[in-house]
């Protein structure tokens, strides 16, 4: 150590101490320790830190009207729900179609109880899940109760879990939050406390289609196509297929290389996906979900028949013939 402190010229008024390997090592060990501890917290909590929306979001959407999120003080109830569709996609439900046992099961709970939902998309179309206090529509979803969202829904076979803690007595509804699906029957009630069980007013889903729906007449002659295919207002509800007005015009013929544009003039989000509802997408083109007011364009270079449909509303079908 003595040579470590010696000044090379020996002229200094006081000895010069210099850093030693041991002290550099100590410093590195301290820094490495900080990095290991900090890194464990950093990676361990990576997702947690971005898990909460800012409080102003709940206020701006009137979140105080919707009960939760509330403190969990009571029992935990588990509920398994699966999205199912009738074969013609007109009737949607949880667990079983209307008329069968287990259709849209009601959940009875007390204030402070927690329901854990395990939802699975057993259908072919897109769905998403949430709990709301509103007795119609798809808004007012209580934070924490949602699984996926209408703009990023569960695809066929996907699933997820969420929780709902009841903060006040009343009737809540678990619904499919994809616009239109609640009205088609994807809604069940959650009764919190001693509220009288409601008339199943929302369960107005039609009987499992007794009247034979006319098959969409895809075979009709293709019309000459000019410009844009419109997805008209109301195509998000079944019925437009009876007159082939889900995509207008629904059957077009274009020449190879011509650009085809779809314009979503409806209030709901739709897709333009090549294939058919029965066989699923064939991969030629897919708009994925595009919002009301936006457009999607595709250019087909090879001649042939291109049937297409909407993944969210599978009664919506159309056809393109490329010459």
């Amino acid at each position, binding site marked *: 150590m003595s040579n*470590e402190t010696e000044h090379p010229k020996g002229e200094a008024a006081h000895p010069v101490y210099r*850093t*030693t390997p041991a*002290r550099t090592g100590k410093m590195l060990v301290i820094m490495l320790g900080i990095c290991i501890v900090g890194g464990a917290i950093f990676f361990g*909590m990576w997702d947690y*830190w971005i898990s909460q929306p*800012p409080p*102003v979001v709940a206020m701006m959407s009137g979140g105080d009207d919707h009960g939760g999120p509330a403190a969990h003080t009571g029992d935990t109830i588990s509920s398994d729900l699966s999205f199912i569709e009738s074969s013609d996609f007109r009737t949607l439900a949880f667990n079983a179609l209307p008329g069968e046992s287990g259709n849209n099961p009601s959940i009875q709970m007390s204030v402070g109880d927690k329901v854990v939902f395990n939802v699975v998309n057993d259908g072919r179309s897109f769905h998403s899940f949430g709990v709301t206090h509103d007795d119609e529509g798809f808004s007012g979803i209580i934070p924490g109760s949602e699984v996926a969202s209408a703009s990023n829904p569960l695809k066929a076979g996907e699933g997820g879990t969420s929780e709902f803690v009841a903060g006040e007595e009343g009737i809540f509804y678990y619904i499919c939050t994809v616009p239109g699906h609640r009205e088609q029957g994807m809604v069940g009630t959650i009764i919190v406390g001693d509220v009288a069980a409601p008339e199943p007013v929302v369960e107005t889903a039609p009987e499992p289609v007794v009247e034979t729906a006319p098959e969409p007449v895809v075979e009709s002659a293709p019309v000459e196509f000019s410009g844009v295919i419109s997805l008209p207002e109301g195509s998000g509800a079944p019925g437009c297929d009876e007159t082939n007005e889900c995509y207008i015009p629904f059957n077009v013929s274009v020449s190879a290389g011509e650009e085809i544009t779809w314009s979503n003039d409806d209030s709901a989000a739709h897709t333009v996906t090549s294939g058919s509802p029965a066989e699923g997408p064939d991969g030629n083109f897919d708009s994925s979900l595009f919002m009301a007011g936006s457009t999607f364009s595709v250019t087909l270079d090879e001649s042939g028949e291109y049937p297409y449909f909407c993944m969210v509303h599978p009664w919506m079908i159309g056809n393109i013939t490329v010459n």
Partner: protein
Amino acid sequence: MVVELAKPRPIWQIMFSTHHTDVGLLYLILSLGFLFLGGALALAIRAELFLPGAQIIGDAMTFNRIFTVHGTTLIFLFILPFASAVGNYYVPIMVRYKDMAYPKLNAIAFWMIPPGGALIWLGFADFTWYATPPYSIISAPGPAADMWIFGLKILGISSVLGAINFVVTILKCKHPDMSIGQVPLLAWSFLASSLIILVAIPTFAAALLMLLTDRLGVSGFFNPAMGGDPIAYAHLFWFTFHPEVYVLVIPAIGMMYEIIPRFSRKPIYSYNSGVFAFVLLAIVGFSSWAHHMYATGMSFTEKTVFMVGTLAAVPASAMHVYNFVATMWNGRIKFSTPMMWAVGGIALFFSAGAGGVANAAMPLDFSTHDSYWVVGHFHLFVMGTIAFGSIGFLYYMFPYVTGRMYNETMGKVHFAMSFIGTILVFFTQHVLGLYGMPRRVFDYPPIPEWIAMNQIASIGAMIIGVSMVIFLANMIYSSGKGPLADTDDPFGVGGKYYYPFEAKNPHH
């Protein structure tokens, strides 16, 4: 990396010391740690942009988090603490006082930085270092965003406390025999930048609080849905952070003022013009903030005022460059590592400044706004000028801090690779911006020119990355096992050094 002023002490005594060289050492180690962390994020960004599409970063939000923390870290946790480290080591010695004016306040200012840095790093917010409203208010997920706001709040207070300390130390504690006109230019640079901090930071402190209450929903200053105006935030933010650019660059220029005369073996060409340029920069720095906002629909009159205000910074900057060149002129220059960094820094300062003058012209600004031109421009300043001056000064300080010499060859390789890399990355990004590539994008369309220029920039970044590994190895190895430095004249250029061993009252 611990120099012993009087006798070897346990490391915890250094950590909880209030002595200016000890606090300076803590600042130094912390800032270097964050330099490497922030630099690693930069490499991740460049690797991601090497090709269109997702490469190594999974999704756009993670990308946003990475470049947000990259910017925040390198500005607030590397450049500012590094300047404080240099100031702590040198300012009391230069004004011949035993310590900083308020030693405990000095230690408090340092110890506010680790919690602030931890909040920023653990949260990893995603709303850019500008905390872009209204996104940051109505959409940025918490608690990360709130942690960023609190982290910045803490770092802002730390800056203000540090600035008060420097101002009082320089103005009130300098030796009675010493007039303000004899204070060395490095100390002058801390006086100028500290005064800017004191005027500028409170505005941002207010803006941060407003951002927080907006997020909580109790106010709507910047929330259009509640009648607020995001442009108001832009004014408050840039009123702080345009002058903050000068807070960052002035100490780096001060460091060059210490290095360049020493290695040119000539006195500084014009001390008075240096002082004048510092003071002028500190004043005109406040007349240009809205040049960041030309594209927000300001009136022609406002734009003209801020264009002229921006150009007013040119003479002051040019005075420094002229001063450096005139000092080197006819000097017996010794190109040791610190001198190479300083001279490279001047060259890049000139280039960045030339780009800035072009950019300040509002018609051009409309085509460069929010493009990679801007990224290239300000990085050329912060990397090419500020980091070059700082790293050069770190090599210059190294023998004083450790009593040992770094490896000269590795230092020169570090400089050469960083210089080439900086030019490859940031000059290219200027051109990329003129080709229309927007900044802050995770993915880009496969336009051949964009791909080529992004790849040049990414390769440049990797060269800088490799040079930084060499730098790290040099620092670690040399601080433990480097050759003993001649503490009177470690660089063999003669003259009187300001020397931390001269610190008074070395262990209290």
